[in-house]
């Protein structure tokens, strides 16, 4: 926020936001730049577009991705398209933060992982950090990015604690989290942690890649790993059908002619009760079974 063009726009941000991501910012930078808004998702996002076209860099808060669905016109038809439609006049360098994923019985309307919807839309950058360090470095990169960025933090990762450096990180660069020989496991967000747990227990040697950014996704890192292992499993918490894993699996199969496999949630709404919610959870055990 040392860049005076950066503003925060959203519901309850003055009180720190529902997950306290913005704690203390309004006290430090003032209510004119950390802007409390009405519950008006379409206008929170749409005003972000207008602010960006007029030279600001808004960080737009959507609370949870499920609420961003009230602003889909503004994201898909406005933010993602403006620069192209206007022939390069104007840009929309906004960051839309929309937490994803299962979280403590949040049920069907507060638990979704819809990253594939946004990766499908030309014009958008899609970021899914899995660690505190990446969350710092990638959020910083997202704010520096000149394109509209859909920034998805997983709600179950808010509790992670780690020492964080001011290291910079480019968007679109994956990380090999664990090296292995027999199979490449590509994943992102919370399932990175489940994948590491599974890899530690697996009888075969598993290479785990945290994709970190879904668009653009780091083909080079994935391809070079799969060339070594000749097998691919993509794992994500989002519903498996038409998930982003299908895109990676299809691309790798086309390019490298290797066996691919996907693992995601079944195509069901997330239930409230724990046994129901657990059916939508991609666990280390399920990953082990798919390896």
């Amino acid at each position: 926020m040392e860049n005076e063009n950066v503003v925060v726009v959203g519901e309850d941000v003055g009180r720190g936001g529902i997950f306290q991501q913005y704690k203390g910012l309004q006290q430090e930078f003032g209510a004119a730049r950390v802007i409390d808004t009405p519950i008006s998702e379409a206008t929170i996002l749409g005003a972000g577009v207008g602010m960006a076209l007029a030279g600001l860099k808004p960080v737009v808060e959507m609370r949870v991705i499920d609420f961003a669905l009230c602003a889909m016109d503004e994201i898909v038809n406005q933010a993602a398209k403006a620069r192209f439609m206007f022939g390069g006049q104007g840009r929309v360098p906004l960051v839309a933060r929309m937490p994803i994923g299962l979280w403590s019985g949040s049920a069907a309307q507060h638990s979704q992982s819809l990253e594939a919807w946004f990766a499908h839309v030309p014009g958008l950058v899609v970021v899914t950090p899995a660690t505190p360090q990446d969350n710092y470095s990638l959020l910083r990169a997202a704010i520096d990015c000149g394109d509209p960025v859909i920034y998805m933090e997983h709600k179950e990762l808010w509790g992670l604690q780690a020492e964080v450096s001011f290291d910079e990180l480019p968007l679109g660069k994956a990380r090999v989290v664990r090296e292995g020989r027999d199979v490449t496991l590509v994943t992102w967000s919370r399932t990175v942690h489940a994948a590491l747990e599974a890899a530690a227990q697996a009888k075969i040697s598993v290479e785990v890649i945290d994709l970190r950014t879904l668009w653009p996704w780091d083909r080079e890192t994935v391809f070079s790993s799969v060339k070594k292992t000749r097998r691919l499993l993509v794992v994500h918490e989002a519903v498996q059908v038409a998930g982003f894993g299908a895109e990676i699996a299809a691309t790798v199969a086309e390019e490298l002619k290797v066996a691919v496999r996907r693992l995601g949630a079944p195509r069901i709404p997330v239930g409230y009760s724990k046994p129901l919610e657990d059916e939508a959870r991609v666990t280390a055990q399920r990953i082990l079974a798919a390896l």
Partner: protein
Amino acid sequence: MASAERALQLYRTMARIRAFENAAEEASRGSVAAFGASLAQSNIRGPLHLSTGQEAVAAGVCLNLEKQDYVTSTHRGHGHTLAKGASMEAMMGELFGRASGPNRGKGGSMHLADFSVGMLGANGVVAAGMPIAVGAAHAVKIKNLPWIVACFFGDGAVNRGPFLEALNWAAVHALPVLFVCEDNRWSATTPTHALTAGEGALARAEAIGVPGAKVDGNDVFAVDEGSRDLIAKIRSGGGPRFLHAVTYRFKGHVSVDAAAYRDGAEVSRALENDPLLFAAKAIDPQAAARILNEAYEEVRRAVDAAASAPWPDAREAYGDVQDTGSGQWR
């Protein structure tokens, strides 16, 4: 009443819009736009929403704007764009899909924009310009600039959620926005009054706390005066204002729509009430004839220039999408 010089200025803008719309309509004949019409060649291929008959609203509001002020517009936005100062020749190039357009052929009629004159874009989605206008006004306020935003939308927009959200936001944050409801009385092919409860656009705005005025949108002098008064209040820090200008859409929803669903008597009355004829009564007849003539000359040159302008290179389809992740098309 406007001064003689101001009346000429208003009339000139209206005449240029009328000439532009008529020429665009002509160039779109045989286009594919709607109702399974033919695939015949025409210079303007895409959906073309004409503002013929509504010229007084664009002319009257925009004469009260400075170059730096912003405008957001609608799918029926040629008039606003011209009145804000965009080049007619470039605009026609855009409608023809040529590289000479301000959007370099990437937007066409529905996404026409000219940032060099503060015109932040027409919009293919009803009411979608309203949150964008509010955001631009919020940026102006944060940057402490002396500009305002004129936000044009139609009578159909008052029934969409962003109407309420945008007005409320602008009022809460006391933003410099003039909301202009350009009420042509038709929501596509249905009369708006049949689908709109309550007392209409201005009453809704006032209920949200955005004061304003209702004017005869076919009387360019009334629009000029009304917007001048409201804009003065906005510029002096009074927060948003609302102008409800009632006019009439001479043509169908899109250029290929003959609007046969309308009552002939209603259309005849509207044509008698032509805002150009009304404005012409207030100025010297010879001057009016000369201005109209010049406008048609200008548009003829614009059509010629557009027809001979180069097409965009096909590679341009990959440009201006995004920087991060560009080059990866699959």
